[in-house]
């Protein structure tokens, strides 16, 4: 390929990078600037003194630390339970024969094709009849429950690729199905479990719709809901809003950048990257 076209391709990619990153850089710039009550002039944003004051204020204000910890708790717990339930269910589908197996799996597949948000109203009534509105149990049950079908689908493929012969060593030692699950399938599936874990964690961390519906008490809010609160109360103090936003998104972006080379994909990328 001629040099001319190589330059054109690079140029296009760099223009694209510019379009993707400009909003983020502008957000960063605003977050380092004080006195952003009214809309700041873009030129002055560049010149104004930079400081971490907004970050310090955001971190201390509005119980932000509590919301941050709430999100850490909700996302971590969701991930642990989702991995546990999904890996067991996937193991059942991968290595057992039982009546109605393929029917049940098809049913799982079918539910994956129904957009989750459509279920929010009846799900709310289910949580309500369990008496779990405004509790983390209710929120966690929904997060874990709606993820099981997709996660099972994703993991089953990986479990089935593990050679059955490996099970023999456990069987010779007199171990049962649980030992096989714990000492063969879980350790050998670390890459796929980690991929699933990261997507589950970030999904729960950013989830807005269900949290907005289930949680009512202010002290229980997770970050996405709390950010909305920030914006409402400090209608135009953008520096503060964006400092809080950046604190909320940095953990997820870091996790993705650190682990991106380790991600595994099922055949066409279903499951792990859905949504």
């Amino acid at each position, binding site marked *: 390929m001629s040099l001319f076209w*190589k330059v054109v*391709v690079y140029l296009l*990619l760099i223009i*694209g*990078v510019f379009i*993707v990153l400009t*909003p983020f850089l*502008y*957000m960063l710039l605003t977050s380092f600037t004080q006195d952003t009550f009214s*809309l*700041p002039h*873009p030129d002055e944003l560049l010149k104004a003194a930079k400081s971490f004051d907004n970050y310090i204020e955001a971190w201390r204000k509005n119980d932000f630390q509590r919301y941050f910890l709430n999100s850490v708790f909700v996302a971590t717990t969701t991930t642990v339970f989702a991995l546990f*339930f999904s890996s067991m*269910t996937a*193991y*059942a*589908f991968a290595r*057992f*024969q*039982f*009546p109605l197996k393929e029917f049940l799996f098809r*049913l*799982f597949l079918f*539910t994956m*094709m*129904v*957009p989750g*948000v*459509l*279920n*929010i*109203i009846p*799900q709310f*009534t*289910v949580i309500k009849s369990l008496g779990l509105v405004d509790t983390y149990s209710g929120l966690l*049950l929904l997060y874990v*429950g709606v993820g*099981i*079908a997709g996660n099972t689908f994703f993991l089953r493929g990986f479990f089935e690729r593990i050679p059955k012969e490996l099970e023999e060593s456990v069987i010779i030692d007199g171990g049962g199905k649980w030992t096989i699950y714990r000492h063969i399938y879980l350790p050998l599936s670390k890459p796929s479990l980690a991929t699933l874990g990261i997507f589950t964690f970030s999904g729960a*961390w*950013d989830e807005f719709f269900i949290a907005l*519906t289930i949680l009512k008490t202010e002290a229980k809010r997770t970050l*996405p809901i709390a*950010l909305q609160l920030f914006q409402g109360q400090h209608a135009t103090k*953008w520096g503060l*809003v*964006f400092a809080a*936003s950046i604190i*909320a*998104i940095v953990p*997820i*972006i870091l996790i*993705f*950048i650190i682990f991106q*080379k380790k991600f595994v*994909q099922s*055949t*066409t990328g*279903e499951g792990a*990257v859905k949504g």
Partner: protein
Amino acid sequence: MTKKYFKQTWDVFPFLILGLIGVAVFVIFPLLKGIYMSFFEYNVLFPKESIFVGLDNYIRAFHDQKFYLSLRNTLLYGVVTVPGQWVFGIFIAILINAKFIKNKVLFRTVYYVPVITSWVVVSFLFKYLFSDGKYGLINFIFYEKLHLLTHPVSWLQNEWTAMIVIWTLGIWKGIGWVMIIYLAALQSIPRHFYEAAAIDGAKARQVFQFITLPLLKPTTIFVIINLIIGSFNVFIQVLLITNGGPLGRTEVLLSYMYKQAFNFFDFGYASAISVTMGIMIFLVTWGQQKTIGKEKIEF
């Protein structure tokens, strides 16, 4: 035979039961209950006092101007953002995949950042970028600096300009997802296909048209279906950027449904809107869904 089945069920039971209960209680039951609720004037405080109204909720939607407006806006969002994300996404994937490009991982990471950034944050961000007056960044660039606009636009105060903001965000945020799926697909095409084409003297365009494109077909079906389903999910950005305004002109189905349920506690009507939406998505994607997973090409 029954004995065998019983034994099998007994063995698998402890592994299967939790997942099965989870899906049954939180996905399948709600799905059925949603359909059931749509036939009632549903009383959320005292469900037993709900009144059966037959198809009234659906008939109401049929005559509801605001429902049509939300439907129009949701469909328009899909019509604009699905091709938008797809075209840019596949284009960038092909560029990054070019042999001479170094730092492939760096480009891939940068383009993926909007995808993993929370919807809430990017919604605030776009509201800020598209602020009214001269100093919103978009007005500043296109009016003050480039003089492409004749006056600073009040983006969020007008129906169609507000729509443009919502669409732009949808495309900007979704490109990276399309790119990463296509990049994986492109990289999984075995090199000997291209070598064979080179030996036969195929031109770059021919290689793309007769080798790359056909091999990407299953990926394309997967991507398009997911984008369509995703486009029906448009909600958070509308809620946070315009909240349906000005005067409800940018309302979408989900925001309308959500308001019916949780602002007016009209759960029956909201369920009818949900079910209608579900049927539409089903019809749009059904024919294609059956082909997913079946159309695998063996190398």
